[in-house]
């Protein structure tokens, strides 16, 4: 019964440590305007707005969608605000897609952003709880033990994470919007960067960025005069599990495996490594690439690191991952998931410029959040589903 949903416009800001030239509204608006321009649409054409971002403490504005209604042309329209922690950019896009698939709206603008420079990422993510003793140092401090567990369990060579970072930073040089565009980030430079949360080095870590991403989604009948063929949504899926419970598989979460299985089955994908041409996945710390390769079913458990090692995940490999440079190269937290979804769509539209995978027809967008417990994914294709 669901309507087909097409991605007809994609926009993003140049991601950077501090966008000092714009307000929060200006930042969000920039991505949204680019998405509308890409679609060949104007503000009055939009039926509804779905916006997502990570904790409101980043900007110190509670429910900022209220203040952003004017900037997003939402006045007189429905406006929804999604927050599913780090996966929010992905789940926001999925809510927007649902509005079209349900036949409720024809043209939906979806936006995600973070202006992290207004405060401090580590503070905003780990506000101290009274009567507890703070022992986890931000997201890096939370995820580093999981990386160590993965290293121990898989026996992956110690330099796997460095290789992921080398690849993603090289890819970022081909992406004009990426935050970290530094040709000097060689293997030695990354290997020699200081350990922050051992085993995670400085250059194996995502930056803290200001940035936004936006997409225009439409029904089949509402596709505007195409400047560029749309990307089609073949399937979406979300899964969540509790933060901490007995028997939880933190390194290879069941929620992520179920989510992948669900999205593949809906998209008719039996062999993801063969059938998916390119993947944009949420890798805030380099070691999460091999971990997610296993979680997503691209590799057997314990074997994900080999894909990095053998170059399979490189731009010219058989399973290119994060050709945009990924979260490792740009991380406006609330937007990071939507950027993965948008980059996947850009690939199947042939819109990715220098980081384009030749002939990409099917792409995976992936985001995760919380303590590896919230997952959102979509499969997009150049052909109608």
């Amino acid at each position, binding site marked *: 019964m669901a309507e087909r949903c097409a991605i007809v416009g994609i926009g993003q800001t140049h991601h950077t440590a*501090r*966008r*000092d*030239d*714009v*307000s*929060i*509204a*200006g930042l969000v*608006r920039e991505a949204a305007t680019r998405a509308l321009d890409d679609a060949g649409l104007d*503000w*009055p054409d939009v039926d509804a707005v779905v916006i997502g971002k990570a904790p409101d*403490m980043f*900007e*110190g504005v509670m429910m900022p969608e209220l203040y952003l209604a*004017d*900037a*997003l*042309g*939402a*006045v007189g329209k429905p406006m929804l605000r999604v927050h599913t922690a780090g996966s929010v950019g992905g789940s926001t896009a999925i809510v927007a897609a649902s509005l079209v698939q349900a036949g409720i709206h024809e043209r939906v603008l979806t936006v995600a952003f973070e202006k992290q*420079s*207004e*405060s*401090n990422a580590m*503070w*905003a993510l780990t*506000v101290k*709880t*009274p*009567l507890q003793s703070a022992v986890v140092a931000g997201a890096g401090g939370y995820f580093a033990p999981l990386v160590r567990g993965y290293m121990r369990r898989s026996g992956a060579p110690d330099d796997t994470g460095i290789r992921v970072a080398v690849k993603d930073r090289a890819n970022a040089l081909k992406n004009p919007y990426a935050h970290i565009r530094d040709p000097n980030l060689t293997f030695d430079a990354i290997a020699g960067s200081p350990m922050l949360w051992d085993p995670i080095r400085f250059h194996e870590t995502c930056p803290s960025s200001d940035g936004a991403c936006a997409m225009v989604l439409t029904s089949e009948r509402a596709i505007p005069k195409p400047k560029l063929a749309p990307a089609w949504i073949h399937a979406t899926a979300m899964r969540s599990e509790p933060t901490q419970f007995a028997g939880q598989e933190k390194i290879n979460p069941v929620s992520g495996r179920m989510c992948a299985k669900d999205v593949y089955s809906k998209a008719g994908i039996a062999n993801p490594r063969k059938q998916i041409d390119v993947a944009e996945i949420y890798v805030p710390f380099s070691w999460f690439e091999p971990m997610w390769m296993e979680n997503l079913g691209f590799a057997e458990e314990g074997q994900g690191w080999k894909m990095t090692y053998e170059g399979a995940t490189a731009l010219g490999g058989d399973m290119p991952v994060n050709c945009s440079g990924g979260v490792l190269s740009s991380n406006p937290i609330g937007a990071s998931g939507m950027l993965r979804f948008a980059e996947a769509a850009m690939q199947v539209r042939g819109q990715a410029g220098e980081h384009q995978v030749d002939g990409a027809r099917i792409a995976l967008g992936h985001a995760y959040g919380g303590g590896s417990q919230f997952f959102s994914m979509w499969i997009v294709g150049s052909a109608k589903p």
Partner: protein
Amino acid sequence: MSQDVRDENGVLTAPHVLEYPYRRSVGPVLGRFFTALRDGKLIGVATQQGRVLVPPAEYDPETGAAVADRFVDVGPGGVVTTWSWVPRPRAKQPLGRPFAWALIRLDGADTALLHAVDAGDPSRMRTGLRVVPRWRAERVGHIADIECFTPENA
């Protein structure tokens, strides 16, 4: 170490403070407004239809379009369009003594600005009252560069 831990019916409670010195980049439109405030002036921005928004908005709330790059001097006087009275001000609010919050349509503006009015007593407030800004001597480019408004005839 948490001070002032209490046991309330078997449940422990403790003070919790959320504090951060946010620093906000304001962008070109609000930047003009704050720069004018620092210089002791009030300005609005024109929409593409010619309505004058004060405080300036970056985008026309009616249409979603960007505002025109045309700034207009407004005020300094204006008219109260509605108001409420604060008998016990909170510490962060503009005045330490009872005052009014008011929406003030400055002369030359089509929308109203929210600010405090130092009227002394609620009996001196009314819709339609003309008010003027009381500027701070030390201005930095902030909405609080106007300490408050006061009745024009005072």
